[in-house]
């Protein structure tokens, strides 16, 4: 898995609350058997018109946001399904960071599995970032932010600076690009000991 230490990127503001996993990646696109190629289906029903052409009214289709890698959203981002296709689609599209006041639990965990950093920030700070993004766009350019996972700070070039919190284990795994399964298999003796100490209910024929 790719490691994540620092990241600088264009911020794409998605000013909607409760963005659910059916919007992030509609179910008809869950039929692939590979992990890749989901970016083309990200926010499919919002990004594209019925005839397949880009929807000019969808925020993320604005030219100034081309190449955006930091998604800014409102509360309860990623609610709904456990489908990891949601972070796969976001990552494949180019996002490495999602900033929101709150996230749904399963989506939040799924991000870490894919080298993506979900950042919980207070509602007022998120509101301030939406303001700055709008102001930057009005002035003609995209809005950029810097994320430093070593110091856990979020900054921009206009004086915004906030700390964020990350579970220390998740932080370490991202910083070092650690494979979760490989790490867990280091504890295989403890797993075997637990199994030996517990009655394994006989099951299948």
């Amino acid at each position: 898995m790719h490691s994540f230490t620092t990241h600088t990127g264009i911020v794409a503001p998605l000013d909607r609350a409760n963005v659910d996993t059916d919007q992030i990646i509609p179910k008809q696109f869950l039929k692939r058997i590979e992990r890749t190629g989901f970016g083309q289906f990200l926010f499919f029903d919002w990004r594209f018109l019925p005839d397949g052409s880009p929807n000019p009214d969808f925020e993320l289709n604005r030219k100034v946001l081309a190449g955006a890698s930091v998604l800014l959203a409102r509360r309860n981002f990623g609610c709904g399904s456990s489908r990891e296709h949601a972070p796969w689609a976001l990552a494949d599209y180019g996002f490495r960071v999602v900033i929101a006041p709150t996230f749904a639990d399963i989506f939040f965990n799924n991000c870490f599995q894919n080298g993506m950093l979900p950042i919980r920030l207070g509602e007022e700070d998120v509101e301030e970032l939406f303001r700055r993004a709008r102001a930057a766009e009005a002035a003609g350019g995209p809005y950029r932010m810097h994320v430093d996972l070593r110091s856990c700070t979020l900054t921009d070039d206009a004086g915004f600076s906030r700390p964020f919190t990350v579970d220390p284990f998740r932080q370490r795994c991202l910083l070092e690009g650690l494979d979760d399964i490989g790490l867990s298999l280091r504890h295989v003796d403890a797993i075997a000991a637990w199994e030996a100490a517990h009655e394994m209910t006989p099951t299948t024929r």
Partner: protein
Amino acid sequence: MPAPRTLLDKIWDAHVVCSPAGELPLIYIDRHLVHEVTSPQAFEGLRLAGRRVRRPEATFATPDHNVPTTDRRLPIADPVSKQQIDTLRANCREFGIRLYDLGDADQGIVHVIGPELGITQPGMTIVCGDSHTATHGALGALAFGIGTSEVEHVLATQTLRQAKPKSLELRVDGSLHPGVTAKDLVLYLIGRLSTEGGTGHVIEYTGPCIRRLGMEERMTVCNMSIEAGARAGMIAPDQITFDYLRGRDLVPRDFDSAVAAWEKLPGDPGAAFDRVEIFRGEEIVPQVTWGTNPAQVVGVDAVVPDAGGFTDASDRESGARALEYMGLKGGTPIVDIPIDRVFIGSCTNSRIEDLRAAARVVQGYRVAPSVHAMVVPGSGRVKRQAEQEGIDRVFREAGFEWREAGCSMCLGMNPDTLSPGQRCASTSNRNFEGRQGKGGRTHLVSPAMAAAAAVTGHFTDIRQWTYR
């Protein structure tokens, strides 16, 4: 004296394998349920890393999301669906996993067959790459949905990295009025909590209203815990649980010893929850969602809300969006809303008691000419039992389609979908935009309410129904 512990505490403590310094704890997973949508990449990951499944005998698979609910002797028309189902079959064969495949008498929706076969048992940790895994908590298990990477982790290690969630007690005192079902109860709770009210928590449902629910009703409640943001929902096991499980295929051979152990699971008196919310059953009327998330719900005797009436700005905005998508105007009585389709099915409400309840409503009536209605039993077993009881005949004579088991129209990954603009009374669990088909308009209701709407052609208060 050790501190009193909740059901969650007891199950958690019993399953921690190790808590190494600086790492999230590893918890052991007793049962891993698998379906065809979220597993292909996990098996491929195992294959690429040269790993095997650590405990194939603790792993159970069935295809449910993609399967057609019509004649299954015919080949699957959608090549991509077929590929996913074939891939599951090949993976189960390669890794030695028990598969309840198409054509197997016990195939069905994974969260229906788990309890039905006695795979789900009290005190267990159970995971599946599906958010409605919460269903199994009804039997007093800690059960929750996981993503595909975690599916791979469980296949390889039979464990999961988890921080212990917080606990939320939802106590429902009093009793439910006639005509008010478990589905109405959980929709009401979600409406009160919001779609993120339970985030970060595991819900334990307590109180006399909950105790009085039968096992299938408890599954309906726990199933929708995720819609309030809680990964898992549980109901402590009791005699109803033990009676449900006795004699099922995969329960322990020494059942009485198992019961003796399970009886120790309910929370100790005085055990503390991180948060407690208390409700009264008498406050609940039959529910109908009006919007595009399960918390946008009102009683059937109410009106569609006016988006401008919400106090929170973001609720006003999402309310307005929802009303536009759903083609509804604030102030419209719910009972005035006509429907085009009725879907009775899904892991929420497709068990035998759900079908009996709907059949009782439909008996002696016919589906309205403007409505296309279908019933999809949750499993082969449910279907066969319904046919033994003559329930399928009641539905067919009334003009419902009677289908084979699968997730069907809950989410349009198989041929059962809504066309744009079609309005559906559905016994499923999510009404997100496009969930049942692009442009489709989903209203979540109980099986009896869906059946009544099929007959009248619009939402109808089941409490005033004339049974024939």
